[in-house]
């Protein structure tokens, strides 16, 4: 009962709060006011429902219970199911097969959307190294993406370089930018770092916009060629399919690299850095090197993704690289779970594909991105799938066997 009363009060509060912005529609040209009380009432009802859920979620969170409880036996069953290696291999095999035949069976548009989604997967995975593994909040990630894209665009325009020559160059340039940003910010604390990287991202975009003689300024660079395949002439369908496989391969390589990285020396050092910087330093980890490698690795993927992006859209201009883009990639990492590869992949897929297929919902896209970031932070900061870490047990202490994963 108390809970209901509280929810009613919350609803009334929000109705009063949103009264001007939601409830008044002003027509400034002919000076009339339209009162939209219907919207306020709907909002009140919505907030009431949300408040009840919100409160309930909090009470569960406070008691340390999971938000969703599976019916009895299910949890154990699921764990059992996913524990079986052949099921996992089977699932992976089906997924691989699906991803492989996808461009052959579905329309050209579907393929194109999938390319976009996979590009974002790549970006999100790259950002995941910096934010998820190393815990360095970077808000200007899109700058490295822009560096990659412009590297290809400009090298093509001025020197006539092809896609394959530009791909490594784009990656290397992005790494150089990453290091250039990384060096001065080494000493900065988390939130200052975030703001500095945001400023950096904006400066890169403004430079692209103002340096007209080199970058073409707001006009951008058009007619960038799609990637070639040993000089083969391809029509648009074939070349889309080709780009699809290219991005797919890139994503697979990214996933393999990052999952290897996670449990490598550097990867573990990154995670230690995330947990506690000072303790990490005390343990004898060279923070400078670790931080720089995080920046370098993260920006490298953005550079690659940028080159592919330029090849895919064939046209780039500075307005593709705004802060909102960085925020979008960040929300994928947040939703997926910092440090979790599978989670980030799924989150990027959902956030890119859902608005494409549910057109009605595409208007609310950014609203939902914003809400996701808040809600995830409050209720599930570890993301959809928490980035599990390999745990080590010292076998001498725990008997003879079972030294591996927990």
């Amino acid at each position, binding site marked *: 009962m108390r809970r209901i009363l509280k929810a009613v009060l919350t609803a009334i509060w929000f109705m009063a709060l949103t009264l001007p912005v939601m409830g008044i529609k002003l027509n400034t040209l002919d000076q009339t006011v339209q009162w939209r009380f219907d919207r306020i009432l709907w909002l009140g009802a919505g907030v009431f429902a949300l408040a009840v859920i919100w409160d309930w979620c909090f009470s569960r969170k406070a008691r340390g219970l999971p938000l969703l409880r599976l019916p009895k036996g299910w949890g154990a069953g699921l764990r059992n199911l996913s524990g079986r290696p052949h099921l996992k291999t089977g*699932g992976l095999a089906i997924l691989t097969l699906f991803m492989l035949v996808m461009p052959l069976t579905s329309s*050209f*548009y579907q393929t194109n959307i999938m390319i976009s989604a996979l590009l974002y997967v790549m970006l999100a995975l790259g950002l995941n190294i910096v934010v998820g593994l190393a815990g360095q909040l970077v808000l200007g990630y899109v700058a490295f993406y822009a560096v990659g894209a412009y590297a290809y665009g400009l090298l093509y325009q001025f020197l006539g370089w092809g896609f394959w020559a530009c791909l490594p160059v784009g990656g290397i340039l992005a790494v150089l930018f990453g290091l250039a940003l990384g060096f001065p910010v080494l000493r900065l604390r988390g939130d200052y770092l975030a703001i500095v990287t945001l400023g950096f991202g904006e400066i890169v975009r403004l430079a692209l916009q*103002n340096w007209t003689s080199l970058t073409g300024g707001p006009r*951008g660079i058009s*007619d960038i060629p799609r990637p070639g395949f040993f000089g083969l002439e391809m*029509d648009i369908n074939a070349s889309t399919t080709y780009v699809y496989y290219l991005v797919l391969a890139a994503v697979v390589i990214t996933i393999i690299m990052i999952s290897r990285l996670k449990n490598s020396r550097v990867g573990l050092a990154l995670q230690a850095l995330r947990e506690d910087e000072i303790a990490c330093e005390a343990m004898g980890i060279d923070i400078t090197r670790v931080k720089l490698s995080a920046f370098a690795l993260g920006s490298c993927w953005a550079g690659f993704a940028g080159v592919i992006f330029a090849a895919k859209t*064939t046209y780039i201009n500075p307005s593709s690289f705004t802060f909102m883009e960085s925020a979008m990639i960040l929300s994928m990492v947040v939703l997926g779970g910092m440090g979790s590869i599978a989670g980030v992949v*799924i989150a990027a897929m959902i956030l890119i594909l859902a608005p494409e297929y549910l057109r009605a919902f595409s208007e609310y896209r950014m609203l939902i991105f914003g809400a996701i970031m808040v809600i995830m932070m409050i209720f599930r900061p570890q993301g959809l799938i928490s980035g599990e870490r390999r745990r080590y047990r010292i076998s001498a202490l725990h008997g003879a066997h079972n030294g591996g994963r927990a």
Partner: protein
Amino acid sequence: MKKGMTWLAAMAFCVTLTAPALAAESLKIGVQGAHSGDLASYGVPSLNAAKLVVDEANAKGGVLGQKVEVIAQDDQCKPEMATNAATKLISDKVAVVIGPICSGPTKAALPLFQEANLISVSPTATTPGLTEDGKNPLFFRTVANDNAQARLTSDFMLNKLKAKKIAYLHDNGDYGKGFADNNRVLMEKGGAETVLFEAVTPDAVDFSAVVRKLRRAKPDIVVFGGYQPVASKLIQQMRRDRLTTPFIGPDGVKDETFLKMTGKDSEGVYASYPKDTSTLPEYKKAREAHVKAYGSEPGFGYYNAYAAAQCLLAAIEKTGGTDTAKLKEALRANPVETPLGKLSFNEKGDAAGMALSIYQVKNGKFVELDHSITLQ
């Protein structure tokens, strides 16, 4: 660990999303533009125009006996979304495309339409290169390109106003900077001196510094490249600073909201805009249709899109099919009565038969001056 389950879930998700769409028998017209997001107000009027023209055609029994259907694709005026929207239209097998709205997305989408052998008519993309580069033979537009506007405005400034010292301000966007650049080239060729050429930050909280700089430069006229929000902020700041230098802008400035925002400050401002055609029957028809359907005056680019849709449907009717090569010929050869006048297209794809005029604000209204060019 739960990895296996996760992958399964991911897979199931992908499968449901890629289920093939069902196709229906009808003549499909694609409309691409910003239908949501922050630039929606530039794209939605065009979509409305296409819908109204199509409704009218359907009421008459369709085109060539087929029902016409509008397939709308939202690109939010972002290049990266434009390629997705364009491929969606291509894979939906549309016959022709109206759009895209913004120049950037048009640049991204055109190579796709070109390869798919698809004709597109943009109602509002004004970047000259789109037609003048000759790379896009299947692209047409029912709007004057920026070069044409700059030809008109520079001619007006040189010959009518006899301006000698010119200041250029722009919003650092493709459209605005292009207008300023083009004018500068033509004005310098005509012997005028450039005393200031600068970008303003559209979101800045104050424009006084740039306006005071303007006063120091003592220009005969200010050429502004950009849209009305920035123009109205600049004009207000100028008049507040008692700076009465004449001000000229492109068609993005000629807007009712501009007058509303600036009040009496905008008195005397010049803008180039298509010649007033509001007395034409087609124009009245288009306007009435919009007022009837949406209860408001049409927005940005509405008449251009209306004309684009009319030209396309007329060409389809004329050629008796949707063969691209024949359509292209028909668009060029057959002038169509539209709200913008009797329109056809030239070799490059620019609208011919449209006229541009200089307007000036007098007593709170844009009044057409006797200075215009007709596009060939």
